């Protein structure tokens, strides 16, 4: 038995010495535990832009009837669900945006902190606009062991976002620190500042009188003048053109891309003005880009009387068909990932004037909005018989006559700007007394299953029901007890 004792002792020693290397074994060789902000910033920007494109393509454009689905018609038929990929996508982008903020705070990089706050505000505002009350003040705190964040009320979120954007504006202006890895604005704090302030205008417009002193707030931002001045200031991600950094629709199956076509409502309006953007938003059925392009708009909705007698495909910048004219043949770049454009800002100003929040000439901004949008799309006026923009503006019938013209042109200009087309249509729908009757260019989608009511929100995703149940239930009770597409969030009350 003596021998075995020795050997046991030997083995024990062996085992314990062997464990020394375990510390090294379990150090992750694949992923760092610390990174710099310049690698996280492109992640949050790229993913935000991709989510925006996807949301516009599948929901935003279709709910606003700029485009129409020809397949999988739930959105057009007003039979909505949670669209969980947007909830997940936005919160995922927020994780990186919060990580950027944490790094900025640690390094006392105020400019970078400002950038992080702008991205957060953009993402949180998209979330709350879509879903209503959402986890906000307690969100992205999983690293602090909070996995069941409470929902904040939308009014508080709005109030907070405006404060955050205000402080972002100041941080960006401080000149204290720098940005790196910025694939949106090439590390230029001034442009971020313009985005921040333009975003404030957008939020104030959505909130309207629900927010105290909305007019004063709006005019202060405008008076400071640090808002988007031209398309160079657009919050638009220019893709590199190679997978996975190409426009997110390019890898789709043709059938999936063709499942969305030019909408009849948008077509009717643009056709009546001979709007040259038609040739950008849609691909002419006769493949004629120079002379007499022909288009068909598809009716949104399904059922008897909603038949889609053909429909024009979306424009050349959005997809490469193997056998059809590519964008490059027309000298056009592929589409960008839009978060906000200068055209929208001009229309915000025009409507701000119309609402009496600021003073100025409505038509000037109205016209600037249209012109900015046309410039952005590098329109070709010839095929529509126009000599120049003045010619189009003055003679097409598009010239300003009443406030609702702003809505119409803004609606057209918001094509592919994330969910904004839907959010704006919803605002006008609400301002019209929850009716389409006040929106001259739109009516409820054909054969819809929601009694001609525009759905007012996305449902909360199922994961909240199972993973954050108590808070979810509380949020639902604030909505009137049901996770319903027609339930009224603060913004539409």
């Amino acid at each position, binding site marked *: 038995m003596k021998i075995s004792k020795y050997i046991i002792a030997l083995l024990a020693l062996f085992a314990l010495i062997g464990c020394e290397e375990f510390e090294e074994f*379990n150090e992750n060789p694949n992923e760092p535990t610390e990174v710099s902000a310049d690698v996280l910033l492109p992640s949050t920007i790229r993913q935000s832009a991709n989510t925006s494109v996807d949301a516009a393509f599948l929901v935003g454009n279709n709910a606003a009837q700029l485009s129409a689905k020809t397949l999988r018609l739930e959105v057009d038929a007003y039979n909505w669900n949670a669209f969980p990929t947007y909830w997940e996508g936005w919160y995922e982008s927020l994780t990186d945006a919060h990580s950027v903020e944490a790094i900025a705070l640690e390094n006392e990089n105020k400019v970078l902190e400002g950038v992080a706050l702008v991205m957060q505000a953009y993402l949180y505002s998209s979330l709350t606009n879509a879903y209503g009350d959402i986890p906000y003040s307690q969100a992205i705190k999983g690293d602090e062991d909070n996995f069941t964040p409470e929902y904040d009320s939308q009014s508080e979120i709005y109030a907070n976002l405006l404060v955050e954007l205000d402080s972002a504006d100041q941080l960006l202006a401080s000149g204290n620190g720098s940005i790196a890895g910025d694939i949106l604005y090439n590390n230029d704090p001034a442009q971020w500042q313009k985005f921040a302030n333009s975003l404030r205008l957008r939020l104030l417009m959505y909130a309207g009188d629900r927010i105290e002193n909305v007019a004063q707030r709006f005019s202060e931002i405008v008076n400071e003048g640090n808002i988007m001045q031209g398309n160079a200031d657009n919050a638009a991600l220019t893709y590199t*053109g190679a997978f996975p*950094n190409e426009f997110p629709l390019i890898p789709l199956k043709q059938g999936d891309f063709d499942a969305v076509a030019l909408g009849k409502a948008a077509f009717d309006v643009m056709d009546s003005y001979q709007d040259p953007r038609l040739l950008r938003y849609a691909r002419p059925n006769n493949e004629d880009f120079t002379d007499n392009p022909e288009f068909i708009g598809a009716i949104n909705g399904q059922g008897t009387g909603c038949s889609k007698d053909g429909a024009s495909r979306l424009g050349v910048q959005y997809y490469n068909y193997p056998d059809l004219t590519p964008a490059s043949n027309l000298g056009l770049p592929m589409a960008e990932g839009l978060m906000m454009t200068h055209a929208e800002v001009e229309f915000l100003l025009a409507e701000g004037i119309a609402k009496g929040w600021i003073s100025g000439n409505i038509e000037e901004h109205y016209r600037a909005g249209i012109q900015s949008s046309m410039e952005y799309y590098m329109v070709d006026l010839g095929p529509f018989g126009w000599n120049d923009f003045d010619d189009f503006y003055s003679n097409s019938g598009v010239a300003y006559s009443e406030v609702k013209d702003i809505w119409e042109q803004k609606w057209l200009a918001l094509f592919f700007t994330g969910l904004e087309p839907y959010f704006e249509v919803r605002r006008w729908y609400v301002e019209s007394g929850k009716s389409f009757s006040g929106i001259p260019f739109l009516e409820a989608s054909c054969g819809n299953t929601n009694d001609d009511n525009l759905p007012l929100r996305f449902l909360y995703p199922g994961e909240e029901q199972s993973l954050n149940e108590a808070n979810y239930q509380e949020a639902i009770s604030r909505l009137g007890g049901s996770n319903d597409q027609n339930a009224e969030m603060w913004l539409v009350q």
Partner: protein
Amino acid sequence: MRLSLRSSFVTILFAAMSIIALAQEKTITGLVLDEDGFELIGANVIIPGTTEGTSTDFDGKFEITIPADVSALEISYIGYSTKTIELTDDTYYEVTLGSSVDLDEVVITALGVEREEKALGYSVQKLNNEDIATVKESNIVNSLAGKVAGVYINGSSAGPTASANINIRGAASLLGNNQPLFVVNGLPITNDLYSFDDGLNGSTTIDFGNAAQIINADDVQSINVLKGPAASALYGSRAADGVILVETKTGKNAKGMGIEVNSTTNFSTILKMPDYQNEYGFGGGGKYSYFDGTNYIGEKEYYEAYGENWGPRLDNGTDVVQFNSDGEPVPYTSSEDNIRDFYRTGITSINNISFNNATESSDFRLSYTRLDREDIIPNTDLSRNTFQTSIGKRLMNDKLSIRANAMYINSSSGNIPNSGYDESSSIQYGWLWYPRQVHTDELKNYWEPGQEGVQQRYVEDLWVNNPWLIANENTNSFSSNRLIGNMRLEYEVMPRLSVRFRYGADVLDEQRAFRRAPSTKAVLQGSYREDEISFTETNAEGLISYSSDRLTGNAFQYDIKVGGNIMRQNANTLIANNPQLKFFGTDESIYTLTNARAGVQVESQKTQTGINSLFGMFTFSYRNFIYLDASVRNDWNSTLVNPAVGLDGSDFSFLYPSVSMSLIASELMDLSADSPLSFLKFKANYAEVGNGAPPYAFGTTFSPRPSFGGNSVFTTNRTVADPNLTNELTQAYEFGVDARLWNDRFRIDATYYNMLSSDQVIQLPVASASGYDFKLTNGGSIRNTGVEVLLSAGIVRNPNFSWDVTLNLGHNRAVVESLPDIISSGRYSIIADVFPGDEGGADLEFVAEEGELFGQLYGLGFERHPETGEIIHQDGLPLIGEDKVSAGSYQPDLRLGLLNAFNWKNFNFRFLIDGQIGGKIYSRSHALYATGGAITNNDDPNLPISTLDGRQHYAPQYDDDGNLTGYDLLDAGGGVTGPGVQWEDLNGDGTFYTLDDDGNRIYQMDEISEPNEQSVQPGGIGYVGYFYQYYGNGFNRDNIEAATYDATWFKLREVSIGYNLPKSFVEKTGLQSARISLVGRNLLLVSDVPTIDPETFSIRNGRFVPGFESTQIFSQRTFGFSLSLGI
């Protein structure tokens, strides 16, 4: 009576020993007989615990001279139970050996220790070579199905390397695959899946298989299944799900030089196919006409790329322009076996040759096996070369023995089929939307003429790929080399004290390549990817054994073993993906990483883990009727070391004990010769096993992402770490009884077990609003309880004819006892979205729910009448509820295997029926086929409506140039009326229920009292219709209830008819033995599940997901013949 006799016998023995201690030697003679009184020639007679002895002569007699203090002799003969005789003053003994193999069957237990099964207080079941090698499978795990009680094996049909999901006694862990540890010749090997990601829409994708499948049946001596923690505790944390011990053949029993040759040839055909309909063709709303392949509705309503079979009636005299008719209207006719004809007869040949030799002090065996398999999908195959060798040598007067085993396996395939919901390389995906009227031969030329390598040719351009393009161009190939080697040194330091050292290595190196041709839908530019996988595991083990002196004849005997093991594992994967090809064409050179339009994306993953262990085992027996085992093991596991706090702060050491007892009650009882009871044993045990965590579980990290232009990109890892992570713990007890009757002709062996696995290491899904998707933490517990029963009967036992029946039964309930408090809903989604990528649908989930059976299938359900359960309809369409419901668990109530074996002269005939009763299976295929109108749905037990009923259909009209001018309505179609009730909103409140204060529904019964009488089209008009709504909301097949079925199935799993050529004949040819067999596998399937073979599973992120099927490759039946020659 017998007891007292025995104890007085012991007394006399002790007395006698003291008297005869003076004598030096004694001579014993005897006769060894079998039960029928025939002399056994060549039976071994040895001194127990030694190799000294003699054997019987031609008359069955022996004579042996032994030291006077030897008190017992051990008599053994192959095929008979070994008997130990205790020596008295007599010098002549007549010994009868029972022919029961079972009674004293020697099984191999933990650490490779051979034990008599009767001495075990836990469950070990043994299979011999002929049990697994008679009817061969290219995945050996499938060969165990139905043969071991309590072992649940689900194969799948996912190609030649398809995985087999094996669970012993249920599922102990929420994380991971609950696969047992595979131990080959004493040292563990990997059985991982190495499946890195999902295809589009997830589910099972390309199944390169579980790594243990390469074990070659011809080289296997025996497989011992160690069930439950008590049996496997000495293997430590990795054995929490049991152990499969594989021993390979050696040359030890060879009589001189010998050669064996085995050859098997099998043919495979389709076992089960969907019930395709042949009455309506491609199109929608009863309309179809071909224009250019890109319109699914379009201005002229071509419906040519509608992707479904809701088109015009076939064989109806209608002329239709079709994709291959050059714009001419031609008859629209059915093509009944169009899909079946795509497949070919699979052929598998397995050829093995082995050489054996043994001398007095050494032995060797060398074997080579070649497996070639052509699978039923064209251009899919597998080939495998296996070299196996074992060399044994005894030195220093037999005190030192050395053995080396090595297995080298080289496998490769030019193409492993994809069985996922993935259009880019899954042929099965394509069939969902395949035109019923088009024969696949029409598509064999899969390139557009003049555009070879650039543009594929298919019936439509929007959705699906040409199946021949997928089979021939979009290949998934692999080549792997595997070396499993080990060596063992055993030295007898002094009598009864020996030291053993073993070292083993499992080295795997595998390359995979994935091609996608240009013009593949959704991969228009084509792509090429290479994966490089390497894995190494080494184990070094030392063991010291000390045993009591058997020769003293002492009633008390004991055995002590103490040892340690050092395990190290290294795994590296490197994935390089060229997502877009630069140059196209048919040249081989286009499929390279360098032919890239833009950057090649690279991912790499390295893991390193180690476990150090010390263990000890103590065995105690009293007079061969009480056996007591106790063991203890301590593991130090590197995965539980938190590098942030270091070794001292980490809790990475855990200890667990086991104790078991076997009581042979029949030895205590007075069993008269005519007593029906011949053997009775009780066993009981208790054990604990710990389990570690995945590597790198500590620390929140940032994951690399493809760069953007010149910008490197990282994203916050979606899993947040728990700094307090600790080991899982399983505590188990079991007890059982083994009773044999009428001279062991009937046997019942029943075991009850109860295992509680707590502190589960789980990938806890968290609300994404927290910033993360998962938290890796401890929490939750699963209790597995179950019963295993083995029944065997020798129904007929004549010298010329015998009939043996064995029935294996297993009943297991894995119940989720608790979940972490953070999950307030009581539901943990193990897989939160089984079929990702479906736009907008409510996800189907694989769920652990507190208080319920593990593995609930969650999704949406129907709105049902609160009393009758009937489905509520609105406007003729079934209503789907908003909240998710469970359709039950995948777990079967009973798993059984029934083996019948007949021997008649030189013939033997065996057949095995295997099956399960209960459990649920969700069939994605059925839901998709039915919504697409491709199947009849006549075999659906859930829904008595045919897709052929009530369809509207039209005949297209053409002008003289073949241009579509319109459609003639041939039949408006009466539609279908769903069974159930109709909701009428009598009070106009828009709902048929209200909620009380507690949120309970109060139904407005008058609104849902009338039966549904409204007819709607079955499908295909603007993608609405009965079948669309029934399986979910339009396109979202998110209704779990509609396509979930009782998975009960039975298979005629194995049949073999063998014939041993008569010795007289064989010897004339110069051979020693020859045997020919006809074999069959999976010849019949009996099940009510429509469309699919319910023996299946999905794989997501390297994890088996039982209970969910998606676009399964058709399962196969196999039949063939084999030949075995001994030279």
